[in-house]
């Protein structure tokens, strides 16, 4: 708070009525802003792919025969789309879930602790969120595509 009140701060450009094409392209987003917008984006991805999630739940769990169909979709394709595209959709879900999960924990922590709502913590926790979600996505994605 004291930092905001000090008069020596240089004048920052003000953004009002942001133009999506003119201002957003030059807007320098902080790590916390990236984590925030990716939290939304990952939520939308999971919303749109939700029927695919339920389909995976359905075929993977209903019977051993449907479990075979479940595996076939990723190995030899389904609905005219090759298997790797379905794997890509699954990878998108893996990333979205991991990011939403970790960024959500960050939000919950900020709701519970006033100490967590500082500029410094906002920045370091944003980096921490990406440092957890991105490597985990890489590791699980490599497993999904059979790299190990």
């Amino acid at each position: 708070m004291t930092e905001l009140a000090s008069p020596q701060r240089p004048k920052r450009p003000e953004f009002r009525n942001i133009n999506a094409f003119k201002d957003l392209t030059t807007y320098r987003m902080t790590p916390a802003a990236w984590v925030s917008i990716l939290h939304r984006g990952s939520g939308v991805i999971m919303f749109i792919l939700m029927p695919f999630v339920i389909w995976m739940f359905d075929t993977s769990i209903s019977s051993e025969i449907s479990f075979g169909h479940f595996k076939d979709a990723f190995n030899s394709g389904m609905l005219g789309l090759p298997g790797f595209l379905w794997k890509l959709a699954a990878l998108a879900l893996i990333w979205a879930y991991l990011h939403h999960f970790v960024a959500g924990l960050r939000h919950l922590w900020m709701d519970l602790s006033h100490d967590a709502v500082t500029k410094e913590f906002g920045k370091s926790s944003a980096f921490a969120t990406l440092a957890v979600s991105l490597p985990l996505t890489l590791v699980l994605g490599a497993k999904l595509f059979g790299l190990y």
Partner: protein
Amino acid sequence: MSVNYGYKRSAVGAHYGVRDWLAQRVTAALMVLFTLLVLARIIFSSGPIGYDLWAGLFAAQWMKGLTFAVIIAMLYHVWVGMRNIFMDYVKPVLLRLTLQIFAIVWLLVCAGWGIQVLWRV
């Protein structure tokens, strides 16, 4: 701030309460616990990780009940989140209402399907 009360009050707003805000956090916490539970049951399992283990996870009635609660929690959580997004980015009332109705139907269809699968295992 534009006028948002009386006859001009937005009919597709959030109803300006703390209820949905809190519900989104409570449902999030439930889903986190559920995720950790499923992960722990897979990690501490013995034998190959395949169909038998996966279907076995959801065999017990208590797990069905818990998963049912998580599906309902997710329904509410996603509804609050999607409505927030529509309220932030979609300003025309008719379009926003259409998207909100779409989201509700989309989520109900998915939840019904998921619950049906759950009790088929």
